[in-house]
């Protein structure tokens, strides 16, 4: 019962954004996806959530091929995501931001609001319910975006750089939240992050992408000990310098 990519390739014209990528996320598991800029991390998420059709290979959800499903169909099938730029509805209050997703998933408005309220409460953000999304502080905006993605009890949650721009303390809070989402809700999480420390602290399994290919896969020790990973990161640092 997993969400998986099987030998997925994505080509934009002649440019190969992903080549032969195979990875999977199980319910309750937190998988990290790291790699230098342009490695293909967001493309992976886009393929997994129906935003991008794979050129080759398959997307599998619970044993069924779902490669052709559109974004909202994947969302209905239980695969939710967040975006790098939170993308909340600024003029709506926090509760309506969540309720809107519930309604989009086919819930009645009152049911959606009830679930939204419960979810905000579970995340310790009940006080934000009637605040306009546009005026929220950055970290709250990120957490509301995660809450919105959790509406309708998805089985999988894909987080696209949720800690970008956060302080160490804020990132640690976020790590705790992701841990709870996996442990208490049983949601399988795929965490894309630049903050490697954060990834290593919450992920049981880490996948490293570089140039659209998986160069390493494994637990914390395997990643830290990997020569390929070191070279990929050092390589980009050297080029940057």
């Amino acid at each position, binding site marked *: 019962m997993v969400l998986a990519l099987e030998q997925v390739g994505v080509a934009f014209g002649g440019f190969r954004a992903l080549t032969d990528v195979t990875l999977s996320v199980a319910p309750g598991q937190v998988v990290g996806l790291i790699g230098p800029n342009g490695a293909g991390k967001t493309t992976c998420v886009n393929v997994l959530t129906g*935003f991008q059709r794979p050129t080759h290979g398959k997307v599998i959800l619970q044993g069924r091929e779902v490669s052709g499903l559109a*974004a*909202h169909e994947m*969302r*209905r099938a239980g695969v939710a995501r967040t975006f790098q*730029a939170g*993308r909340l*509805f*600024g*003029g*709506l209050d926090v509760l*309506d*931001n969540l*309720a*809107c*997703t519930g*309604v*989009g*998933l*086919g819930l*009645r*408005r009152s049911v959606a609001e009830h679930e939204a309220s419960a979810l905000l409460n579970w995340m310790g953000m009940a006080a934000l319910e009637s605040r*306009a999304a*546009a005026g929220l502080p950055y970290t709250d905006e990120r957490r509301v975006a995660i809450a*919105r993605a959790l509406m309708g009890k998805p089985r999988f949650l894909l987080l696209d750089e949720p800690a970008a721009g956060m302080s160490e303390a804020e990132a640690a809070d976020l790590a705790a939240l992701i841990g709870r989402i996996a442990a208490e809700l049983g949601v399988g999480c795929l965490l894309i992050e630049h903050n490697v420390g954060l990834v290593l602290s919450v992920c049981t399994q880490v996948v490293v992408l570089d140039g659209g290919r998986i160069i390493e896969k494994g637990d914390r020790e395997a990643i830290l000990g990997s020569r390929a990973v070191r070279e990929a990161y050092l390589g980009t640092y050297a080029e940057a310098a």
Partner: protein
Amino acid sequence: MSLQLLFDALALGGIYAIAALGIALIFGVMRLVNFAHGQFIACAVFALIVPSTDALAVLGLGRLPAPVLIPLILALGAGLAVAAEALVFRLMRNASPVALMVGSFALGVALQNLLLVVYGGRPKAVSLWAELSHPVQIASAEVPLLQLIVIVTVAMILAALAIMLRHTRLGLEMRAAAEDFTMARMLGVRANRVISGAFALSGAMAAVVALVLVAQTGVADVRMGGQIMLVAFIATVVGGMGSLSGAVAAGLAIGAASAFLQAGLPADARPFRDAFLYGGVILVLLIRPQGLFAPVGAKPRV
């Protein structure tokens, strides 16, 4: 300020507000400035009379009793707008806003010419609810009954729309779609239903404006939607494109300003009332180019 003038201002402003809402509702969900809105109004007017190019208008639907006629004309307006969306704008869903706008112009011209073919180009006298021009004494003011009805109707429409947007499922979806249509769609919001809903509401509001215009002026003219469409468009720009409350406020303000200028300007300057009015509009836009109530989502974010 006399009580009379206040009623004039409210009635004119109210009609402009309803017309502006018709524009703003569609712009909100589709980024389409629907220049065919004026022709929706004209079509709703001509629906009242029997199709003929004779100079003398014969009331057709217009003869029905008001409790039947009003819902019928509103439904016709809504139906026309929904049909226009399904037949024209749905095919242009991914077109640029400019292409959409040109498309709406084309639709407007086509509708106007259709009316010309069926009804002829001459304005026709239409007597709808003539008894409503009867004045009513309110304190020191003598107010035509129609004006009171218009003011109450506008207030009821605005209240109903506010409740719909705030408390219903479609309302929530429409607000979300107006903020970020792509995102709403990705979250599973029913795009077609939201857009059809916005068009239906907009068409019904065009029909409201049509009924009021006919009752007020007693004329059916193929060109009659154009002038009010222009005012409504200006009101949506002044109010802030995409903001419904902004469109309502600016529609009210423009109507009120128009009534006040009509009463307050010296007699020699009165023929140039609109020049003063639009001078004021330009001034507002110089100070706030994004409009008075620009929605949060329209601002660039840092």
